[in-house]
């Protein structure tokens, strides 16, 4: 007994010594690095050997392809690239940027990282390279105000290679069976869904399992059609007073509920993940799939010439069509060793002819850049051609919106996903869904 008592005392002593002198966790906000203001001379990679360290997203080969292409043009620059799942990147980004900052990182939305002073302000580069002269909507999602909010305005904290766009993919063979033509209004789209269901075809491929409530794609599309993409952006960018719980959005949520009740999705929606949805569509098991142009290259390979694409139609024919759009973002960490070289690479990737061709060929999406920039040719009749045209339409009309899942770091996992799974299960009223998401949002940004 005496022994165990002594051991206990030793452990207590050890614990106490570990705790003693421990100050509060965390560090004071790091110095705001990369103060804006134009660089003195052209930011470039110099002539000596440079190794750029980068973290890219696994499964998206474009960044790697551009990096290799860059080395062919600038042999003194080589890469140390690590590819990781996006979820892993998202979770580790803050720690990575503090402990071991690379030169270029694929990032989730930038608000929290900007708030912690971990990202370089790119305004100086933007001014030098002329990114400021592009259509402003292209870079809007990557701007953030002081402390990280609101987003959508203020200094530029990230860049991208291309802008993606979401809409409706359709299987041309199945479409022919029901005499489908691309709809001009949402009502026409509804009618096509009903005809497909009558013909015994699953109208919509969807996914809503696990950590990603994929119903957020159709819901956001319907919210933009019933309401406006600008109102959705205000909410995602955390503009003061913005709310998702509006009558127009409630109408959209009821619209989605009608689709669910009509059985337009497969019954195991809540057990279907993203890969399975794409596979079902690509193997001809569903007529439509709401998704983004990042699947264009894959669909052109798997079902060449047999897939079409249109933007979700508006309520009234002829009104502008909205879409989720925005570049996958890449930031330069505040602690980067070669920020000028990384910025030079980002600029090269969107202005160089060969780089832009690589973006279209490998990424299947519209390269960022000035409105009159060179647009590489694509195979006519391919779905890539259709999504490129759609992306250009959204950029020109300024009807792009950020993904509602980007509103806060936890919005997708903690709010949209569980609530949409409940909606799909018939356990949650559409109005409650929006109210609960809004409550979480207020709680998260209030702190």
């Amino acid at each position, binding site marked *: 007994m005496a022994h165990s008592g002594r051991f206990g005392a030793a*452990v207590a002593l*050890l*614990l106490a010594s*570990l*705790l003693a002198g*421990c100050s*509060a*966790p*965390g*560090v*004071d*906000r790091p110095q705001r690095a990369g103060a804006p203001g134009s660089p003195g001379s052209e930011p470039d990679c110099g002539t000596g050997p440079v190794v750029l360290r980068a973290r890219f997203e696994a499964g998206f080969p474009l960044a790697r392809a551009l990096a290799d292409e860059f080395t062919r043009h600038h042999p003194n620059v080589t890469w140390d690239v690590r590819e990781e799942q996006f979820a892993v990147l*998202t*979770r580790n980004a*803050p*720690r990575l940027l*503090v402990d071991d900052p690379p030169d270029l990182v694929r990032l989730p939305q930038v608000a*929290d990282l900007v*708030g*912690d002073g*971990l990202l370089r302000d790119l305004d100086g580069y933007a001014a030098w390279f002329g990114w400021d002269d592009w259509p402003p909507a292209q870079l809007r999602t990557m701007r953030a105000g002081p402390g990280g909010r609101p987003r959508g305005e203020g200094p530029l904290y990230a860049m991208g290679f291309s802008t993606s766009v979401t809409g409706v993919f359709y299987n041309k063979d199945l479409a022919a069976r029901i005499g489908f033509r691309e709809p001009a209004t949402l009502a026409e789209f509804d009618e096509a869904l009903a005809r497909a269901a009558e013909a015994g075809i699953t109208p919509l491929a969807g996914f*809503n*399992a*696990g*950590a990603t*409530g994929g119903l957020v794609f159709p819901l956001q599309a319907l919210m933009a059609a019933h309401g406006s993409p600008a109102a959705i952006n205000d909410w995602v960018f955390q503009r003061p007073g913005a709310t998702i719980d509006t009558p127009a959005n409630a109408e959209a949520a009821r619209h989605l509920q009608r689709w669910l009740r009509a059985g337009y999705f*497969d*019954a*195991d*929606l*809540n*057990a*279907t993940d993203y890969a399975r949805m794409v596979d079902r569509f690509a193997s001809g098991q569903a007529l439509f799939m709401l998704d983004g142009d990042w699947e264009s290259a894959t669909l052109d390979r798997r079902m060449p010439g047999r897939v079409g694409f249109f933007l979700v139609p508006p309520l009234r024919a002829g009104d502008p069509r909205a879409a989720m759009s925005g570049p996958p973002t890449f930031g330069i960490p505040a602690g980067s060793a070669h920020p000028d070289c990384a910025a030079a690479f980002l600029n090269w990737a969107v202005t160089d002819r060969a780089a832009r061709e690589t973006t279209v060929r490998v990424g299947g999406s519209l390269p960022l850049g000035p409105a009159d920039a060179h647009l590489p040719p694509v195979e006519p009749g391919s779905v890539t051609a259709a999504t490129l045209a759609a992306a250009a339409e959204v950029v020109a009309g300024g009807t792009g919106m950020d993904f509602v899942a980007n509103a806060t*770091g*936890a919005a997708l*996992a*903690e709010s949209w*996903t*569980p*609530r949409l*799974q*409940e909606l*799909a*299960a018939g*356990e*949650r009223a559409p109005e409650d869904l929006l109210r609960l998401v809004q409550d979480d949002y207020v709680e*998260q940004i209030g*702190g």
Partner: protein
Amino acid sequence: MSRLVGWLFVLPALSVYAVFVLRPLALTVQYSLYRWDGIGPSTWVGWDNYLAVLTEPDLVGAIGHALVLVVIFTGVPLCLGLPAAAVLRRATGGRAVRAVLLLPQAVPLVAAGFAWSLLLSSTGAVNRLLAAVGLDGVTRAWLGDSSTALAAVGVIGAWALLGLCTTLLLVGVDRIDPALHEAARLDGAGPWQEFRAVTLPGVRRELGVCATVTTTAALASFDVVYVTTQGGPGNATAVPGLEVFSLAFAQREVGLASALAVVLVVLVLAVVAPVLRWSR
């Protein structure tokens, strides 16, 4: 002097234990008293995080789910393992059966989770089997239906733990002096009385170990849930382990995550301590 030498021998293990177990534990307790995003400055909040753990419906619900899993993870392996051990002791070919029973324990739970989510999917083997015997009416995506998801997760965990418990109990049953069984039978005990008076007390320690291992596995469950449902649909299968992970890494509420982790540790100790005392 000799005492000092004793400490010297303990030192290597103790230092590893201190660095990898005690220090993180102490830091977790410390973090739980702050509001902190894991990077920036932190604010002292005292017991607020604990209050939130015990009042926020999502977190309380997660703890409730863990308790349901305790019933399934512990109940099924013990209720099936004990009779299985009693029967296997006499059966011929017991060795092969033992190997098969222990197999789930050798499969990583993540792999088992993937395999089971295929079996339990809407077009999986379980549903085809049900349809084949005329039970089309009950087929469903077991992990995608909020009324069955938690039970389905429980079945996967129970499946993985059944073999371990049966094997442990078999060892216990084997260790009982055959003379006791013989004496019981000579005294006119039937199979049931023999089981109650000889077998059950004989495997008390093994029962305790099984209950401890399975209870801990249920309360601290993470891998099965992460692989199969990620807490969904809705919050139907949210468990504390998953919530700690999501709070710390997705929501960046390191303080709240730490408080939940501490509550989880206390809960595990509170449930396991009486079991250990009973089985001693």
